[in-house]
């Protein structure tokens, strides 16, 4: 058994997850971590499946079973996984929508040595669209991170808030 990464994207309609999950189950796969959500009217699936299947065979099987759904599907080996660090900070970035916000902020984070563990963006509203991005990240040094973010957000004309994540253990 090995881990394969499967992605599937298509216009949202009922039955997509059921169709994909059925194929994986029938072929003896076990879905591990996954994220499935609607992005701009498209349903997007990213998942890790533990299976004996070969990537090409699984992809063909998925495509055959979901032809009417018109999904764009990819299957690849998921190798080199390492246990992710728990995020230390939560970063909100938002402003009037314009190109370059994701690229600018994530470039600055990479340069500052921060590792992104989760990222979500959203376009809010239609008349004066606001772009909102929420990032969970692992950072060693908060002061340098805040300084760097201040500079890049100033350049981009966006607002931001950086907070430490308080974890609760039960």
């Amino acid at each position, binding site marked *: 058994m090995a881990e394969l990464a499967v992605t599937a994207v298509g216009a949202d309609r009922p039955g997509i997850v059921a169709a994909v999950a059925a194929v994986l189950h029938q072929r003896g796969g076990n879905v591990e971590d996954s994220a499935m959500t609607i992005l701009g009217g498209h349903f997007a699936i990213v998942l890790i499946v533990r299976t004996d299947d070969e990537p090409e065979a699984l992809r063909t099987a998925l495509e055959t079973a979901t032809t009417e759904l018109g999904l764009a599907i990819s299957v690849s080996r998921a190798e080199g996984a390492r246990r992710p660090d*728990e995020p230390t900070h*939560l970063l*909100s970035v*938002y*402003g*009037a929508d314009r190109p370059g916000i994701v690229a600018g902020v994530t470039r600055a984070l990479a340069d500052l040595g921060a590792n992104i563990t*989760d*990222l*979500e963006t*959203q376009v*809010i*509203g*239609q008349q*004066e669209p*606001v772009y*909102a991005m*929420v*990032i*969970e990240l692992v950072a060693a040094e908060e002061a340098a991170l805040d300084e760097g973010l201040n500079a890049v957000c100033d350049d981009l004309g966006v*607002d931001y*808030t950086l907070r430490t*994540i308080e*974890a*609760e*253990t*039960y």
Partner: protein
Amino acid sequence: MGAKRVVHYPARVLKGLAGPVGEIGDRERELAQNLVDTMYDAPGCVGLAAPQIGVPLRAFVLDVSVMRKPPEGNHGLVVLFDPELLLAGGSDYRREGCMSVPDYTCDVRRATDVVVRGTTPDGEARVVEATGFEARAFQHELDHLDGLLILDRVASARTDVFRRKRYADKGQHLK
């Protein structure tokens, strides 16, 4: 009608620190009336801060009694100038929206019990103890006076707040 237009982000007045009001006179009472009229005029609105009508002063109004299921023990219409948060305790997550960020809601963690002190339109000092959703409303409005929006208070990248919990195994210490 004193109802004003509600200002939407990215208007800069929403991101600044609102200034102290100090002495309460006719101008301040008129501001309070405008806030009250604007709040009641907007469907679903339970609170409004002065920056949301373009006035960078430390004043807000709230009234959670207008909700479909009004929280027990709420104070009805509250109008406060120069409010301060004296005490905050407890913690809860709940979906919030904001008139100044239309078409957006997110989970926000807030204290469940607060004590807030401020000045009334009559110039009197007033202390309010609030819990639950009313406490949440107080904190939301106080945030506006410091240039903070719900976009600054988003609880997590995914809307699933339960990712934050970790369950300690017996005999193991988790950081």
